[in-house]
């Protein structure tokens, strides 16, 4: 594959899926905290 294409593939993968992973991580942390506080769903 073209080097530029590989670099943009990595940009897409880390940019989009990296941000998604971080936001899902936030969601899980928040859910776990809510369960501990007794204010959220289990």
């Amino acid at each position, binding site marked *: 594959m*073209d080097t530029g*294409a590989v*670099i943009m593939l990595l940009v897409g993968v880390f940019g989009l*899926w990296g941000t*998604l992973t971080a936001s*899902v991580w936030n*969601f899980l942390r*928040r859910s776990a905290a809510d369960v501990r506080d007794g204010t959220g*769903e*289990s």
Partner: protein
Amino acid sequence: MRSGYVEGGNMAADGDTLAEPRELWGTRLGFILAAAGSAIGLGNIWRYPYVVYDNGGGAFLIPYFIAIATAAVPVLILEYSLGHKYRHAAPFAFRRVRRSAEWLGWFQIGISLIIMTYYIVIIGWVLSYFYYSFGTRWGDDPNAFFFGSYLGTTDSFWSVGGVQWKVLLSVAVAWALTYLILRRGVRRGIELAAKILIPALVLMILAIVIRGLTLPGAAAGLDVLLTPDFGALLDAQVWVAAYGQVFFSFSIGFAVMIVYASYLPRRSDLSNSAVIVGMGNSGFEFLAALGVFSVLGFLAAQQGVGVTEVVESGVGLAFVAFPQIINEMPGLNSLFGALFFGALLFAGLTSAVSIMECAVAGVREKFRLSRAAAINVTCGITALISIVYVTRGGLYYLDVVDRFVNNFGLIFAGLAEVILIAWIARQLGPLQAHINRDSYLRVGWWWTVSLMVITPVLLSVMAAINIYQEITHRYEDYPLSGLLVMGWGIVLVTLLLAFVLQRLRRREELPESIGD
């Protein structure tokens, strides 16, 4: 898991009396999957890959990321906050913002329903092709099969040509599936369907990508998709394409996200949910692009031509190029076909359900109907109109309506929304406070600047470009009468009906929330 997520008391036993309390999502995950299901539609699979290819390849990712951060996610958060704060479908949510703005909600619902009239027909085609995949029943010439045998497309715009019965049958099945999901309610219908269909959809696309990447020619396909042309970034059209892509892809301006957020519990994290839904949608379409271009590379290798000669988008990609690819597969052709059309089916169905739900909730609140009655009325009327596209001339009408609704209706709906909230009603401050009360990611100056300046300016530029192009070039050389009736006419009639609906029962007080 918490059960019985309803507000204002116990759920009525039959679930459809006026006194029924409003239903809520069963879990936050359910809301996120349903919202992602709404955003992830057919366009993610058949439009996005071509947009990337056509606008600078890999370099397109730069304006695309900027558009996500400065327009799509901010507007998504805005719509979540509108629905969540006012706890109504779009018409009454806008009426709570400003009494004279109810029409905007009806206009958004009207545009959504017009989209639904043809979207469901495409889902019907997908259902047929899912069946045809078993044994590759489209034969050796998928182009002739689709436009000839299957659609029986007439040779001129106003030749309606009668109903195509096999298309009507599959569209009826698509309507039945949508209706059944809606009738089961928010939690047992929409949320449950999303919890099953969205993970299945992601797995199916992953399987397509993995299979695609192992085929000969895949690397050439990915090169064509991703090799960056940074010179394209100097072209204003590429930036407009990026903003257009994220705006259409995120289901904003449809009234859907407003009603979905109105079903959230009172204390909910809105901004992080918007980022998850937005990035889930974008991550999915990027994955789909890798799958589509790897198999297009394979098709080009099999035919001994360049990849650019086989690149297609939309209907041509799904119903002509993909059947060709499936025909060329070295093995398990039917399984690959079922995976592709199954993925399209799941993506389309979850979006269709969300489009109908925004209308059902709006009609139910306005006319104090039970959920069942509102579903029967909205699905019944929309289903009847959708028969227009099941005729042999239906493809022409679909093409014109789709162009005008997207290029003018949706852009106007989104532009009016941000101008109303940011400039006329000046509600960004109160909404920002509402979002930040319970959200992990706090919105600040970037959110305000995006909604006050960037989004309105970009949408205005898009509207101006689209109007200029429409005036200077007649679309697809269709007759002017066709463009006036099916294009401008439908958008203007929808706007007129929105104002009529605003005037109906305008002196009645708003219910606290649906059914209260």
